[in-house]
């Protein structure tokens, strides 16, 4: 469980929550409308939902990458907008969807950015920073590639490098927007196993937007289903990944059976659901 070393992140008492979040872009229709959500601390939570349901927007709003028109985001009970930006970045790490890195940027330079919240402009690069970058590279298995430009890495390796950057921030909460999209199955397992390991070792709260329901069922302790900007279901994978929820959220007819080895729900999609008016 928790290591006794001083570099281990501690679990938060209150966790991350959103109250009455309303986000509307230029469209008249809000993407999120008056949404309430509470993320259990020290838990791995998956947010699922169809395209356009607002998953990414919700994650970005919780991670302060997007300002809501109305509503507040709370971290440990405090309004996130009242917490200093650097302080927030030390507690909350966000990995946006498909991040773009400039050419010629090496892995170690990217991971070093994760130390920015811990340093002021006058701070020299300290041994502490070096140690944390090294540790992040080690945990993500990227130590051998530290001097390699990101452009020369495979998709899975690149994703692990970005995760290493987030880990270097030493956050107690980690938000990831579709970390496994565009990865093949082996790399998907790599990334998810890594996140599970981080969660197990540090007690980090992990929140991910995932498309693959198989991964969700295997790796998530809690699942939140979103549809049309509102929370439709919230519970364990066994409670949320059911034919009724799948019908309502994804508009598909599916059977759900327990995995013969590990017991988690396995989705067998049958067909696209016919609406009564079709």
């Amino acid at each position: 469980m928790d290591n006794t070393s001083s570099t281990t992140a501690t679990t938060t008492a209150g966790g991350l929550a959103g109250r009455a979040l309303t986000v509307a872009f230029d469209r008249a229709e809000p993407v999120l409308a008056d949404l309430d959500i509470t993320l259990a601390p020290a838990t791995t939570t998956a947010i699922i939902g169809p395209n356009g349901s607002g998953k990414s927007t919700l994650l970005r709003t919780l991670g302060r990458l997007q300002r809501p028109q109305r509503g507040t985001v709370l971290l440990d009970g405090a309004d996130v907008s009242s917490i200093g930006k650097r302080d927030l970045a030390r507690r909350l790490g966000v990995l946006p969807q498909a991040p773009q890195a400039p050419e010629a940027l090496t892995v170690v330079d990217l991971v070093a950015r994760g130390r920015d919240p811990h340093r002021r402009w006058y701070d020299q690069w300290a041994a502490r920073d070096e140690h944390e970058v090294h540790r992040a590279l080690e945990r993500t298995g990227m130590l051998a590639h530290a001097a390699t430009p990101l452009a020369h890495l495979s998709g899975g390796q690149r994703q692990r490098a970005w995760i290493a950057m987030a880990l270097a921030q030493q956050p107690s909460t980690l938000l990831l927007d579709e970390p496994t999209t565009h990865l093949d199955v082996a790399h998907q397992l790599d990334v998810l196993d890594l996140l599970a390991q981080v969660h197990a070792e540090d007690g980090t709260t992990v929140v991910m937007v995932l498309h693959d329901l198989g991964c969700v069922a295997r790796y998530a302790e809690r699942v939140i289903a979103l549809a049309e900007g509102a929370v439709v279901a919230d519970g364990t994978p066994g409670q949320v990944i059911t034919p009724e929820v799948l019908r309502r959220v994804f508009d598909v007819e599916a059977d759900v059976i327990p995995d013969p080895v590990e017991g988690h729900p396995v989705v067998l999609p049958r067909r696209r659901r016919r609406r009564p008016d079709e």
Partner: protein
Amino acid sequence: MRWRPRTVLVTAAAALAAAVVGVVALGVGDFPLSPAEVVSALQGRGTRQQLLVVQVVRLPRVLTGAAAGAALALAGALVITMARNALASPDLLGITAGGSAGAVAVITLGGTASAAGWLRQVGVPTGALLGAALAGMLVWVLTRRGHLSGVRPLLVGVGVSSFFAGVVALLLVAAPIRDAARANVWLTGSLNQRSWPELAPLALTLALVAPVLLVVAHRLHGLHLGTDVARATGTDAGATARLLGAVAVALTAVAAAACGPLGFVALVAPHAARLATGASRPPLVASAAVGALVVLSSDLLARQLFAPVQLPAGAVIAVVGGPVLVALLVSQARRTG
């Protein structure tokens, strides 16, 4: 700050090369001096004539050129890094055109009063600043609050530059022929007859900007990865971008006020510095050193190439800068298309 050894090496080499070119430039002209004589004159030793030529006549010109090159390169490095776009340099975005229009307005509307004294030292740079600020605001609006990726910002730049070129044309037509002629000469972009009145506001701006950059420049690392990642690592991306944008506009304006529009320095110098250091973004100090080197070398070439005919330094830079721009456009098109 983590200093990369190669960056330090390139910066030192560029600065040294600029100094060498500067010393050579100080010795060139109607009254030639050897480099050794130049160095002595700089230290205060030599005949009265040598001291006059070096310290009073030529030194301000060389210093102005170096300062303008550094300022333009800095502005270019800042914008290219924040925009994450190799082509987004202030002169291609129309900022320089705005600064030119402002300066020309002061030169033509101020009449002969702007050839010397208060108007020359303060009026022209202020006009350039206002023009460049206006251009900056136009670009901000036309790129939908600063979306500077892709080729579209260049199109905006063409539009903004054309607008201000029209303003300049109007001013030149309306002004008395003597002032219009002076403005026309100014517009070619050269170091001819630049002296302390041009250097002072430029040096002042650089001195004011340096501490700001010292404090804020480390945020460029994060901004270079995009606003999302910058925000995720605790940087106030919006405020930082606006501040550094304002700094870039000010540097471009004051450099333009001093030497006229020296196009392409803000594009060529940062990319040369980036390639030389192998970094993922143009390092600020290295870019400034390379910028000074570029302007001083171009000016020296411009004076000596077809001596006694003196070309404007801007023409020489354009000969190099034009192909560089085309090469960048082609490589970007190849990557996306």
